[in-house]
């Protein structure tokens, strides 16, 4: 197992390097002078020259790339042009919202997908099966952003069951973790050094609400999470349902299932006790792989629901030509994607020894 993990980590090096080359070249591939484009049409020659110097755009390309690499290793992604804030700071504020949304979407997708898949397999070749599978096919064919708008209209506007957008209702108080745990801590003490961490974690609203014991904010944050998660989770739910069904059907045809039935076990014990265990392996892989595509879908979902995550950040800043932020966000999302896929592969190898020892 250790050898397998080491092997996978070595294979990761060229991919990581490639990702860095791509994000680095983004700025340099823009047709025309990037400085002029970023500063806008009305910038003076002087300010453009100053900007080029400050960004190091006059240096030879290999020097620029080397500086890019060393800066990243020091946790420096440059400064945003629009806000003059550090890109890492902007990203850290946005990351928790995206993570919360992705997990919410995955949670709903698993519940809906697995249940639908089991029902479909159990009622194999009936109208219920056909209906579920056509539903799943429609689910993968739906644009996420359209489903989001429709959900927003029905549940947020017509029925008023759930809030249509945002992360928290205006007026609902949510104390930050810094204020809660580090209130009154003097500058220079060791506790004060924890401030960046608590600041970061405070942007996970659900976590913060739980830790500060704020039931009202927790309920409010959860309600805000439902609609975006449903929209974003629709495609994974459909894929998980199809995978669960086909995997379960395959397993139900095995000899040991016939044996279990012949022993007189109830259908429920056969299904949940015997069949599910083996049927779940491919389902878990699919779930893991869907995490990546969720990161892509989050870009659209966040735009619809005014969800202040990384996806909306990247879209806003492309339109504003704020390339350092775009570069940084693309890099961070790609890194998360790669590491999630790595974790999926490793956990799969852990669950199924054939992969580790096979050719």
């Amino acid at each position, binding site marked *: 197992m250790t050898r397998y993990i080491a092997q996978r980590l070595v294979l990761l090096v060229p991919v990581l390097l490639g990702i860095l080359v791509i994000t680095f070249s983004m700025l340099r591939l823009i047709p025309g002078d990037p400085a002029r484009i970023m500063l806008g049409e009305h910038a003076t020659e002087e300010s453009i020259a100053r900007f080029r110097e400050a960004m190091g755009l006059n240096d030879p390309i290999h020097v620029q790339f080397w500086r890019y690499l060393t800066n990243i290793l020091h946790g420096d992604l440059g400064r945003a042009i629009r806000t003059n804030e550090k890109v890492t700071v902007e990203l850290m504020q946005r990351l928790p919202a995206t993570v919360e949304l992705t997990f919410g979407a995955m949670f709903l997708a698993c519940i809906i997908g697995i249940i639908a898949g089991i029902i479909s397999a159990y009622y194999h070749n009936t109208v219920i099966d056909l209906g579920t599978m056509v539903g799943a*096919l429609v689910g993968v064919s739906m644009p996420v*952003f359209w489903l989001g708008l429709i959900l927003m209209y029905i549940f947020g506007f017509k029925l008023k069951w759930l809030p249509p957008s945002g992360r928290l209702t205006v007026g609902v108080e949510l104390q930050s973790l810094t204020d809660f745990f580090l209130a009154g801590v003097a500058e220079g003490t060791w506790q004060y050094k924890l401030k960046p961490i608590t600041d970061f974690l405070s942007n996970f609203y659900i976590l913060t609400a739980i830790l500060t014991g704020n039931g009202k904010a927790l309920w409010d944050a959860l309600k805000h999470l439902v609609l975006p998660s449903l929209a974003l989770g629709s495609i994974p739910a459909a894929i998980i349902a199809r995978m669960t069904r086909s995997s379960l059907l395959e397993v139900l045809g095995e000899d040991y299932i016939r044996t279990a039935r012949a022993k007189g076990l109830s259908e429920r014990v056969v299904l949940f006790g015997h069949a599910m265990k083996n049927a779940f392996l491919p389902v878990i892989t699919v779930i893991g792989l869907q995490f990546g595509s969720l990161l892509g879908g989050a*870009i*659209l979902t966040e735009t619809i629901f005014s969800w202040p995550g990384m996806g909306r950040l990247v879209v806003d800043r492309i339109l504003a030509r704020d390339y350092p932020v775009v570069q940084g966000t693309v890099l961070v999302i790609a890194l998360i994607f790669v590491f999630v896929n790595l974790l999926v592969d490793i956990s799969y190898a852990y669950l199924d020894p054939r992969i580790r020892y096979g050719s």
Partner: protein
Amino acid sequence: MADTPGSIPAAKPRAAELQLPPQTTLYLDALRRLVRNRLAIAGMVILGLLLICAIFAEQLAPYDPLEQELLLRRQPPSAQHWMGMDEVGRDILSRIIFGARISLQIGIVSVSLAIVVGALLGAVAGYKGGWVDDLIMRVMDILLAFPSLLLAIAVVAILGPGLMNMLYAIAFVSIPVYARIVRASVLSVKEQDYVLAARAIGVPPTRILFRNVLPNCLTPLIVQGTLGIATAILDAAGLSFLGLGARPPTPEWGAMLGQGRGSVFTAPHIVIFPGLAIMMTVLGFNLLGDGLRDALDPRLRV
């Protein structure tokens, strides 16, 4: 070896007497399986209707898709305007009919581009092997290390928003899939006797590639290409929705949704119909793609 009159008759019984199966080819056989698949037929009907809309848009559309009737802004569906009017008073039905042309073009052109480039890269990688193979496939791995929509957005960020740039972006991000398919097929065919024989008698490599190797990857390419068009149309709609693809007033479905989304609470019909159009189109390609997979390669059936 022709039978000349006078040679021994009846030495070779006719095919009919031997009860050979009726003559068939792979594709004829697949076609027969395809038309028996009801879901695939449904997909083809949807796509057929869309194709008619796309070709005869001028004749079918009741109004000019760009003409604005400002007094009728956000008007709900009526007898004159079946799908109502959009936020600046354009007939939504007409825009959707013209939009079919744009969406089908985006899907088919971007996937064709990706297949040509991907197949070429995959064929070279598989056929040459060695460091060429390593280099090409590692680059493909890196492209696959990005969520595809994010990579497409990054490409559009570089090239600038617009319909054509979006098309290139979508083609670019789907190259690795086709490169992998073709490479795998090339690897499995490369060592076959008939390819070795062709090499031995001095057939030039490009000719071997086109005559002997590439026809063998057609099946997975057709299936993946059909499903790929569905993904391409969805991604294109998403990019246009974000304002990174087709520019207004182009009647592109994603852009229609993007511009109309402010009216979702006051005039929901403005977002409902373009979304339905996207969904039906994507569903059509998905149904056809699934059907093609079952028909062309029964082993893959789940």
